[in-house]
């Protein structure tokens, strides 16, 4: 199914206090990274309802990246801890349902880590390229 023109579609949920600012930092520092992500700003990584992630994958996103503050830095004290548990369980859900759990990735990126944001994006895009398109794309698996 993979053709040369295929580029991974990535949905990135970035926390407003750290990672979104980190993405801004990557931009203002003019660090190059692949343009595959659609970045959605959320107030906290803990605000990302597991339904959002499943819905993104259902609508043919090839990967979902959740970026939040480092442990201890959460603006709402414990939002990122909650996310870490949810992502672990969601990966299990995806594995059982037959979607590669690697399509879901959780990273902690602070407002100062523009470089890390760019590198995470590069690594994730490469990983998704190896996995190929979402199994639901083109009417599901053969």
């Amino acid at each position, binding site marked *: 199914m993979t053709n040369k023109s295929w580029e991974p579609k990535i949905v990135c949920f970035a926390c407003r206090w750290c990672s979104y600012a980190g993405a801004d930092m990557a931009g203002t520092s003019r660090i190059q990274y692949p343009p595959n992500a659609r970045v959605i700003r959320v107030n906290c990584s*803990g605000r990302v*309802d*597991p*339904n959002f*992630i*499943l*819905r993104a994958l*259902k609508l043919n996103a090839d990967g979902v990246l959740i970026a939040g503050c480092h*442990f*201890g830095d959460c603006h709402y*004290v*414990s939002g990122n*801890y*909650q*996310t*870490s*548990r*949810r*992502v*672990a*369980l*969601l*990966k*299990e*859900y995806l*594995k*059982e*349902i*037959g*979607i*590669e759990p690697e399509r879901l990735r959780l990273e902690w990126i602070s407002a100062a880590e523009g470089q890390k944001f760019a590198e995470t994006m590069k690594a994730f895009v490469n990983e998704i390229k190896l*996995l*190929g398109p979402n*199994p*639901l794309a083109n009417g*599901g*698996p053969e």
Partner: protein
Amino acid sequence: MTKPTLAVETLSICSGCEIAILDLHQALPGVLDAIDLKYIQVLMDFREPPKEGVTVGFVSGGVRNEEQVELLHKMRERSTILVAFGACSAFGGIPGLANLHTKDELLQEVYIDTVSTVNPKGVIPHKVVPPLLEEVHPISDFVKVDYVLPGCPPPPKLIAELVTCLLEGKEFRLEPKTVCDQCPLIKDEKSVTNFIRWGTKKIDPERCLLEQGFQCLGPVTQGGCEARCPTALAPCRGCFGPTENVHDQAAKMIGAIGSVVVQDPTKAPAPEQIVKEIPDLIGTYLRFSLAASTFKKALHTNVVKTKKGVKA
């Protein structure tokens, strides 16, 4: 004036929902005075719904084979009001868990691999019996449904309420509340440190079961049952399906699990530990609604299969 008629069609189901109708007990004679029960397979010897003049059609059971698709369409054509009756017809129910496997895997397991099966020629029935569909469907995948009465089985009180509403020409709607809203147990502090299976620890009869670490699906399940399971200290299994705002019970439950764990990070269990403590995630969280969840079935991708093989 002729009495309104009721027909009950049985698809892929255990017949528990029909028994629930009989469970109306003392309300049953009253219901039978008001309506004409034309067709119900557990009580009468008919194979097909009446040709015409069905006022209310109850369909219990999900759709598993081609014959059932046909029967379902007949029911829809012949009834004025169609009710999805029970968890199976509303969300696929427990038979919907078969969607984790392909049709061929299921046939292989049932007719060939099971230890108790004697089938030397390895014949899989294919004549006379109606062919299976690839997966289990809730009835709303095929026809328009007017009302949904979920439950496994639906509580007699709600059946009586539904029938009364329909007779009086009123709308029937379950309140958009969860099981937790109706549950009498005390919800206190979110302080779970580990999740346990039911029956492995003494239950505190006053406190919320989820906060004690049991897998109770109350927060993500449509209310209406008056929290009959948690009241009896059995965790909710989610038979009323998702509420209006919950699209996927498992996703919402994963969200809830993330936040019931104790907030202090030094006391909270590691995420990997929580994953281990919930052995059958889909079978627990989507026990009744896999066929109506986000993905509806397992995607049988080669990538994942080989990976699973390596891991196993």
